[in-house]
């Protein structure tokens, strides 16, 4: 895959010995004055799955996200990158209103899923989360059996009419998550007894068991070793055929490998959105370039 190769080549700089000329530039000012009013690149698409307009997020008095405009296309994988603390998780958590659970977190602006506002009083947050599922940074299986973990979502949403149907959902979800072969003989064992990578795939199986339309993943591989990471990345590629996926990642290689588009966040602003290839080979904005060449972050 040429995309991966080029991305690796361009980001390779960040991890190898950088030429001294770049070093000189690295002292450049990265203050807010460099941040564009609207994101450069192509934040908007036609026929989007989700749209965000002028999204602000406040934690108490402190603003964490500033006026973000972004569309997520159908069945795409969009990666969100940016320095630590720039608001990637915060932004992601807006999309299924997980921020509601945080005391004094306030979200402003418009977010639509299939052209319906997710803040609409008619739309229940429970059904929103069934449609927009989430996988967290740290694997967090319930302290129940593997089966129960996957079956929980379908059970509370009444997706299965009987035991056999439920069994079927559990099996296909585990298969889609690439975990079935490893756990099919021990479905009744606790999910917390699995390895970290298996637990994360279990959490993915749990998320896809309710057949969401969008899956949000917040650094799903940050707690995993390279082999487990590779498995999850493969899985993301497979899942992207049926689901829309928004993934936050710290690894630029990962963003390059799995995503169709990449969004770069900086200090709560969306700076640049473009095709992943474009972002990594030919970034339009200075800050994006500085970040992917490893000059800060």
């Amino acid at each position: 895959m040429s995309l991966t190769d080029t991305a690796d080549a361009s980001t390779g700089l960040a991890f190898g010995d950088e030429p001294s000329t770049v070093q000189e530039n690295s002292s450049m000012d990265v203050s807010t004055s460099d941040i564009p009013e609207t994101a450069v690149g192509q934040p908007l698409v036609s026929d989007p799955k989700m749209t965000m307009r002028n999204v602000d997020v406040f934690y108490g008095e402190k603003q964490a996200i500033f006026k973000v405009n972004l569309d997520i296309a159908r069945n795409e994988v969009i990666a969100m990158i940016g320095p630590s603390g720039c608001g990637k998780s915060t932004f992601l958590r807006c999309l299924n209103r997980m921020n509601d659970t945080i005391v004094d977190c306030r979200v402003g602006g418009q977010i639509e899923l299939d052209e319906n506002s997710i803040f609409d009083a008619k739309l229940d947050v429970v059904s929103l989360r069934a449609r927009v599922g989430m996988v967290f940074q740290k694997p967090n299986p319930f302290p129940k059996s593997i089966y129960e973990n996957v079956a929980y979502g379908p059970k509370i949403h009444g997706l299965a009419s009987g035991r056999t149907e439920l069994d079927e959902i559990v099996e296909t979800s585990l298969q889609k998550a690439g975990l079935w072969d490893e756990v099919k003989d021990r479905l009744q064992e606790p999910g917390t007894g699995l390895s970290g990578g298996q637990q994360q795939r279990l959490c993915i199986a749990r998320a896809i068991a309710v057949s969401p339309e969008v899956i949000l993943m917040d650094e799903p591989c940050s707690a995993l070793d390279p082999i487990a990471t590779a498995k999850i990345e493969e899985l993301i590629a497979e899942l992207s055929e049926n689901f829309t996926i928004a993934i936050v990642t710290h690894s630029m290689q990962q963003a390059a490998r799995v995503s169709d588009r990449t969004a770069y966040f900086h200090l709560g602003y969306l700076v640049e959105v473009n095709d992943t290839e474009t972002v990594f080979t030919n970034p339009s904005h200075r800050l994006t370039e500085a970040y992917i060449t490893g000059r800060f972050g």
Partner: protein
Amino acid sequence: MSEVKSTIEKVNAGLGKRYRSEKMFQWFGIISICFGLLCVLALFFDIIGKGHSAFKHHSIEIPIMFDADKLGITDINDTKQIYSANYDGVIKASLRELFPNVSGRTEKRKLYKLVSNGSYLTLQKMLLEDPSLLNQTTEVQLITDDDIDTYLKHFVGKESEFERIHAEQVEWLATLREEGRLISHFNTVFFQAGDSREPEQAGIFAALMGSFYTLIVTLCLSFPIAVAAAVYLEEFAPKNKWTDLIEVNINNLAAVPSIIFGLLGLAIFISFFGVPRSTPLVGGFVLTLMTLPTIIISSRAAIKSVPPSIREAALGIGASRMQMVTHHVLPLSLPGMLTGTIIGMAQALGETAPLLMIGMIAFIVDIPGSVTDPATVLPVQIFLWSDSPERAFTEKTSAAIMVLLAFLIAMNAFAIYMRKRLEKRW
């Protein structure tokens, strides 16, 4: 390179001191634990030493002739007659028969004092159960008077130290022992009877039942209320000044002296709402007030200890808040809640002061049959007995403490067992 070395040297130089302080701290801890253990052991030795003899009692086996004439029974089917029959006369006759040489009023009175003055109840019960005993002679074990029992337990051979026994009685008892009529047995009366003015007839069963009913009322009220309060405060209540105020007040309540709750119960439950005084019902109300803060605080701690990642996981796949609480938070925090509840119950079981205020200090002979019967509770019974001068009551006080301690230990052990069993690792 030299700088690295000097760091290591510095660390090494400080190591000795670090180890020493660690050792010292360990020793300090060990000494504290030993001290605590010693105190507990001393308490146990003292109480068991004083109280173990209360679990035994002496009886005298005498042949009893259920003489219809003496008893004054004309119709055996008339239970009224059986209840009011003259059993004392029959017992006295039997004793006189055993010791025909005894003469004179005072002598005889000493002889009759060998057995408990409640012995007639034994005969009454026998006759009620088996009317065919009438006009028959059977061997009956009658429990001894408390002074006789005390003598037999502690002063045989040291008669001069115990002035409540008479020389003649010592002789008679020696004869009885030779004849094999003196029997030492497990003190069933202690576990079956209510309180009594006569130590040999006094038991803790009424107090036990009182404690049982009181605790049931307390548990039924405090557990659901406390869990509901804890869940609401932790999971649903907005965090603002009001909930802060509530939190402070709950913590304050936990520190309020228990006697205040007694006064409150007297003023509100008894005077205002007219709940009958001296009953387990009002006792349970008062103890509920007292244990609520304990259970609320421990339940909140248990709920807090459920990792937020579990909540996020549940919410993230679309569980409602209520589902998150009932499916995940409650099952995971239940062990902690139960532990808190049982510790609260143990506290309530040992509580005395507030119950004195609401009249649960009454002299209760009858076994309470429901939560609205007048009752007393174990610690109050201990308090009552410890006030009595008879040596037999001193012994019973310690025995009752042993029973109370046994219940407390059992409850705490159960709490630990429940926590271990229900605890889930993640």
